[in-house]
Every structure is written in structure tokens, then in C-alpha cells.
């Protein structure tokens, strides 16, 4: 297990290096410098700026020095937000996005697991069909549609909840969290239903039933652990999805988090910010994929044995 974990971590390093390299050269091959979009700037100012940001050095030298900075965790200054570093911007946005993602995940897990397990316990009844159809609608209703519709109904027509902001007015965190969480709730419902159905048809569940255990105990104690493996395996990719979902949700609700910074950086062609955030977000996603893989293996004895057997 530890050797497997170590192997996976070692595998992640070349991936990260590839991300940094590809992103760096992509950004530097982009047509138009970072200052060209602005109004006419005298050439000597451009030259001074280029010197300040090391843009006059050969690209390899820039790459090597950038790599060195990144290893030390320094992403350099932002091109557009003058006087602020990429690190500061990430530090400002990260807690907000993390909080949003956390609430969204709670929404997704609570709704998704209740619906999915409920459906699996009574398959092919109304308790199965209704939540599963709702889940299908949830998957087909993208967040950039669900969010505005929720705003329209609960914010504008009913005036129950604030329509934008984060932590300014009480209740303004509810709609963004639901918008971001709903799609994942739908996936989790489908995955947990499938996983539970498969586990509930296994012999060891029949044994538990034959022992006369109550149905509640069987589900909570025996079935859940195996039945939720697909959900756990989904958590890693879900994390990546939460981040890209935050691009949309933070744009709709005007939340000053990482997602909104990223989209704005893309619009403003703020090259250092895009570069730094791409590397930062990629690292986060790779780490979370790793963690969810480990958790899935830890939960699944069959996989554990396969890994031991392979070594």
C-alpha cells in the first residue's frame, strides 16, 4: 500500500513538470504581449516593463528561472493587477472557493446519498424512479442554466434569497452552494444506487440476512462500505469538476474566488496569473485524484490484494 502510494506520488511529478512546461510555452507563444492590449504606451515604458518582468531574456532562461520560482512556491507578480502577486490573488480567492466547494459537496453528498441509497433499497418502485429521473434532469441541467433559474425564482420573483455576493448578506451562500452541488448530487445518486444494488445482491449480504440482522443494520454496517466505493472513486474527478464549476458559479453570483479570477485572467490575458493559477489548480486536482484513489483502495479489499499480489 505504502509502496503503491509512493509510486503514484512519484508518477505525479513528471505530470506536474509537463503541466508547467506546456503551460509556460503555450502562454509565451500567445500572439500579442501582455501590454499590447492597452492604449498606446511609449516604447521606453514597454521596455522598462519588459525588463521588470524579465521578458527581454531568452525564453529558456525565463523558463528555468520561472521553474525555480515555482518550486519555491513563488508565482511572481500579476500583469494586470499591478502591485499584487499571483500568490496574493490565490491566497485571497482560495478560502472563498474552498468554502463554496465544501458547502456544494455537502449538498451533493447529503442529497445524492439519500436519494441513491433510498432508490437501491427499493428498486423499481416510485422511491427508485422519482429520484433517479430527478437525477437525470440534474445531470442534463448545467449549472449555468440552473443558477440563473434559481436566481430568477428565489431571488427575483420570490425575493427570498440574495442573488449575488459571498458572505456580505446572510443567506447569500445558499444559492451558489446549491447551484454548484446539484449536478454532483445527481451523479452521486446514480453511482451510489448502482454500487448499493450490486453489493446488496452479494452472498455476504444474504448471509447477514440469514443471520436475522435487521435491514437497517445490514445496509449501514455491511452494504455501505462496499456500495460506496464508486462514490469514493468519483470524488477525485468530482473535485476537478467542482473547480471548473466554480468558474461558472462564481461568475454568475459575482463571488471573488479562484474561478472568477481565472475567467477574468483569461479575458484580460493576464499571462502570469493564468500561468500561476493553471499550475496551482492542476497540482490541487492531481493531489485530490491521488487521495481519492488511495481511499478507494483502502475501502476495497479486492484492490488491496491485487496490489499486494502484484508486488
Amino acid at each position, binding site marked *: 500500500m505504502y509502496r503503491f502510494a509512493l509510486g503514484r506520488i512519484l508518477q505525479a511529478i513528471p505530470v506536474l513538470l509537463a*503541466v508547467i512546461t506546456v503551460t509556460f510555452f503555450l502562454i509565451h507563444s*500567445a500572439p500579442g504581449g501582455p501590454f499590447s492590449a492597452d492604449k498606446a504606451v511609449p516604447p521606453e515604458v514597454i521596455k522598462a516593463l519588459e525588463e521588470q518582468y524579465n521578458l527581454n531574456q531568452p525564453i529558456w532562461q525565463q523558463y528555468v528561472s520561472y521553474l525555480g520560482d515555482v518550486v519555491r512556491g513563488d508565482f511572481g507578480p500579476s500583469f494586470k493587477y499591478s502591485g499584487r502577486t499571483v500568490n496574493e490573488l490565490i491566497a485571497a480567492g482560495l478560502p472563498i472557493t474552498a468554502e463554496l466547494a465544501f458547502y456544494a459537496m455537502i449538498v451533493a453528498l447529503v442529497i445524492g446519498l439519500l436519494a441513491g441509497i433510498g432508490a437501491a433499497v427499493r428498486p423499481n418502485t416510485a422511491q427508485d424512479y422519482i429520484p433517479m429521473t430527478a437525477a*437525470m434532469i440534474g*445531470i*442534463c441541467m448545467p449549472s449555468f442554466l440552473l443558477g440563473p433559474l434559481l436566481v430568477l425564482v428565489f431571488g427575483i420573483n420570490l425575493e427570498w434569497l440574495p442573488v449575488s455576493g459571498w458572505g456580505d448578506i446572510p443567506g447569500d451562500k445558499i444559492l451558489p452552494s446549491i447551484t454548484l452541488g446539484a449536478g454532483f448530487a445527481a451523479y452521486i445518486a446514480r453511482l451510489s444506487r448502482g454500487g448499493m444494488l450490486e453489493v446488496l445482491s452479494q452472498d455476504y449480504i444474504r448471509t447477514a440476512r440469514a443471520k436475522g440482522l435487521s435491514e437497517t443494520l445490514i445496509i449501514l454496517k455491511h452494504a455501505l462500505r462496499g456500495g460506496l466505493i464508486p462514490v469514493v472513486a468519483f470524488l477525485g474527478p468530482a473535485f*476537478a469538476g467542482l473547480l471548473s464549476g466554480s468558474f461558472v458559479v462564481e461568475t454568475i453570483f459575482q463571488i471573488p474566488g479562484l474561478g472568477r479570477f481565472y*475567467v477574468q485572467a483569461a479575458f484580460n490575458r493576464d499571462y502570469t496569473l*493564468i500561468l500561476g493559477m493553471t499550475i496551482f489548480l492542476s497540482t490541487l*486536482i492531481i493531489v485530490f485524484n491521488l487521495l481519492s484513489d488511495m481511499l478507494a483502495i483502502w475501502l476495497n479489499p479486492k484492490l488491496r490484494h491485487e496490489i499486494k499480489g502484484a508486488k
Partner: protein
Amino acid sequence: MNSSIEENSSSLWKDAWIKLSKNRLALFGLAILCILIITSLLTPLIAPYSYEAQNLELGATSPSIQHWLGTDIFGRDMLTRIMYGGRVSLMVGFIATAVALVIGILWGAVAGFFGGRVDAVMMRIVDMLYALPFMIFIILLMVVFGRNILLLFFAIGAVEWLTMARIVRSQVMALRNQEFVEAANSLGLSQWTIIRRHIIPNTLGPVIVYTTLTIPSVMLLEAFLSFLGLGIQPPQSSWGLLINYGVETMEEFPWLLIFPGIALSLTLFALNFLGDGLRDALDPRASKD
């Protein structure tokens, strides 16, 4: 012996069709998809108004007999705009999926057929690419190379082929070691005949299923990017872009958000149900119970 193979392989498809036709939701999905494709192909002929026609005096109006789905703030007919937007959305869905399909099938088939070290290297590359955050990379590509529709096809296709490669590879791997392939080998059939008669038909099922499920996810990706303003650019239009415009004016003119939203959701719904139905019909593992 030849005829018996034909019989068997055709009965597999017949079985699948019988199963599919019992699945009402999947049939509903298929019907919606057919209607959409026909409408998209005929849009220039049957759209009630021309795509560019503006009527600034009219402005935004709610649905009426002249304009079934209302008009936008420039007085443009919403039904026409949704029909033209659907053409672009569907085109992105089909072309980007086709790109993903070609790369994925080739990659997976080569890895699975040769096996050994070739397979190990090729699949390790797939594993590594899996770990990359692709949404971010597509945005990056759109920023660096400009927002151009051809790049969008390529970028989305380049992202979506990974799973297809895995499916095809595992299918080919499993088939290579089957007795009937061994039997065909010992009968002295050529490699190409084996690939054509045994490998391809048996791989087709999962490939069709996954293709049907890839199209909606590609369309969703395009709508997502267009919504952020990083995908399809005006004067071209897509459902994601129409939703983006709809959000700006939803307080006064909610139908400008709701109708393109329904169009997108209904299409995704139809394709997902069709994909699920095909999986139930074509997956031999699922058909055992």
C-alpha cells in the same frame, strides 16, 4: 459455417433493437435526436425568419403568433436563433466526438492489439493525461490561440478520446485471447480477416454506447465555454451563447433564457437516455440479468 456467423451476428443486433424498442425513454431520446438532426439540416429552408433579420423598433417581445418563442432585444426571432444555434451546438457535438472517436479507437486498438511494451507505454500516457485538468487546458488553448471554432473541435476532441482508448483497448485485449479468435487463427485466416470479422464487430457495441454518451458531454462542454464567453463567438451562435445572453436580460425577458435552456436540456436529456438505453441493449454483461 460462414452463414451461421452471419446469423449470430445479426441476431445480436436484432436482440439489441428489440430491447431498445421496449425502452420508452430511449425511444423518446432517439425520436428527439432524429427531429433535431432533421431540423438542423433543414434550418435554412424552414426557419421562419432570416438569421440576420433585426427589428429594432419591435425590440424584445414575449411569445406571440408571429414569433412563437418571442424576440430578443434586437427584435430577432428567437425560434430562428435557437434553430441556428442548435446547428452549431450539434455540429460541435458530432465533429468533436468524431475527432475523439478516431483518436481513441486508433490508440486503443493499436495498444490492445500489440500488447506488451507498446501497450504499457501507450496506456501510461493515457493515465498521465487523465490526471490533467482539461477544462483548464481548453480555456488556456482558447486564450492563447484565439476563440476559433476549428480549435474548439480539436481541443474538445483531444480531451475526450482518453476513455474511448481505454474501452477499445480492453475490448481488443479481451477478444484477442478468446477461443474463437484462436480458432480463427488456427484455421489459417489472415490477421486482417480476423480483425474485420471478429474484432471490429465485437468492439462496436461499447463504442456505439460510449459515443452516444460522449456527444452530450461534448455539447455541454461547448455550452459551458460559450457561456463564459470563451467558446463560440458572435455573429455565430450556439445554445450556450444564447443562454449567456438570456441571463443578462432574464429579469425583464425571462423567455430569452428559458427557451434556449429548454432546447439544451432536452437535447442532453434525449442523448443521455438513448445512451443508457443502448448500453442496456448492447452490453452483454448487462443483458445477463
